[in-house]
């Protein structure tokens, strides 16, 4: 309770300092609008119907990309983590993919997949892929040797070993990867819209900037932050459902 009170006071103090700075230093609302202007703009934004259209587009893009990232990240991570020859052959490609600034690939994706949703889903997926892959890879390598021996002694069927040992061992890792991935998936979708968007919250932000509606621009950012928080929280809550036996399931996000 004391913790919570402290956190609320910190947030209130933040807004007071913001307000105080804008007020006493006479900052132009075109540079930094006062917090109450942003709140008004946020309500205006939430009242407009086309906001939800853009919101839906951005959500579709980032969740689509996130889904691709989970599926491919998990599979590729497990394969490379468990099959040494695949690890040797494909590791250079994976590292190359990781060190490349992936946003630099956006023009290429637009060239290949067009200006529609597809290119943003791909950007989002490529950005979100790596944490899922890296953690799935680590998970596959972290299967406890002692437990593995129990399955060897019991002459377990491969399918059962996978189901009873490998998947549960990897899940805590994959969930950690997913928590990082969901944030990157949102970034991917928004940046994709900045570069070549005709719809979506990222596109809306660029429009508001051009129209110098800075308070609404802030409101869009707040909305994106709220989405990010909700999705991150939702992914974190999966721990309680999927790995209730793991210590991390009882750790709170904040």
């Amino acid at each position, binding site marked *: 309770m004391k913790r919570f009170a402290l956190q609320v006071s910190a947030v209130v103090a933040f807004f007071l300092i913001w307000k105080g700075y804008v007020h006493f230093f006479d900052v132009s609302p075109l540079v930094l609008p006062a917090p109450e202007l942003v709140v008004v703009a946020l309500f205006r934004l939430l009242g407009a119907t086309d906001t939800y259209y853009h919101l839906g587009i951005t959500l579709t893009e980032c969740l689509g990309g996130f889904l691709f990232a989970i599926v491919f990240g998990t599979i590729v991570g497990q394969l490379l983590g468990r099959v040494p020859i695949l690890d040797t052959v494909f590791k250079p490609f994976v590292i190359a993919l990781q060190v490349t600034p992936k946003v630099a690939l956006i023009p290429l994706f637009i060239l290949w997949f067009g200006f529609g949703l597809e290119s943003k889903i791909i950007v989002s997926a490529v950005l979100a892929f790596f944490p899922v892959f890296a953690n799935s890879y680590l998970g596959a390598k972290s299967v406890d040797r*002692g*437990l593995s*021996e*129990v*399955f*060897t*002694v*019991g*002459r*377990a*069927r491969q399918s*059962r*070993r996978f189901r*009873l*040992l490998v998947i*549960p061992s990897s899940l805590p890792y994959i969930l950690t990867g997913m928590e990082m991935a969901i944030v990157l998936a949102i970034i991917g979708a928004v940046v994709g819209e900045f570069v070549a968007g005709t719809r979506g919250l990222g596109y809306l932000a660029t429009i508001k900037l051009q129209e110098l509606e800075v308070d609404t621009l802030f409101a869009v950012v707040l909305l994106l932050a709220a989405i990010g928080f909700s999705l991150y929280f939702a992914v974190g809550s999966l721990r309680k459902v999927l*790995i209730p*036996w*793991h210590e991390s399931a009882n750790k709170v996000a904040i």
Partner: protein
Amino acid sequence: MADSTVRMVPPAGNVHALNASRGPVVRVDGVSKRFDTKSGTVQALEGIRQSIDTGEFVAIVGPSGCGKSTLLRILCGLEEPTEGRIDWGREGQAPRMGVAFQDHRLLPWLSVEQNIMLPRLMQGRASAADVDRALALCKLVGLTGFEKRRPAELSGGMKQRASVARALFTDPELLLLDEPFGALDALTREQITADTERIWTEQGFAALLITHSISEAVHLADRVIVMSARPGRVVAEFKIDLPRPRTEALGSPEFGKLCSDIRKKLEL
């Protein structure tokens, strides 16, 4: 008391009298094991020649690194001997085995009940009879009421009990115990040892116990094998003829003398 699903207890109470002349369940025939490490070759086992009779309880004591665990790992198929071979009593076919390790090795994501029937789950789905058997084993090792809990909710002693119950699930002809009580506090350890003696007396399996504890070996075993370290060799063997159950005899002079005789051999 064991449930009918575990095994009927003969009225006499001791099934081991019946097993006396059934021949060995396993013969270890001149087994040696060398490990190649960066700092050279380690001779873990040298010329081990032993057999375990059907229903016999054998304990191996020895200092750390004497290869006693390696012998157990060879028996359960986790290591191959460098020289020599393992002869299984019954026409070369390995008997049903159960293994309990020093660390309990329970799966944290499964309940106690599921962990106990893991040998079945490794092959496919469990039947109602398997669940009944797991519940009966829970009762046998004193875990009634904890069937649905996860291992993390159990104490160290209870985890080891669950681990032993899992090793018993296949109704083993040979139970391998690799210091399963080594990490427990003295009181818990005494209780589990007494329970192990009771279960062994009722069930009639052969057992091989690897341990550091001389008193535990004398408490449980028909025969105690003393090993030396690097290379791991058998240096002495003791037949333990104390009447069972031995729990009350733990403070007796005979018990004390056997322990000190074995200790002398260990210090050689």
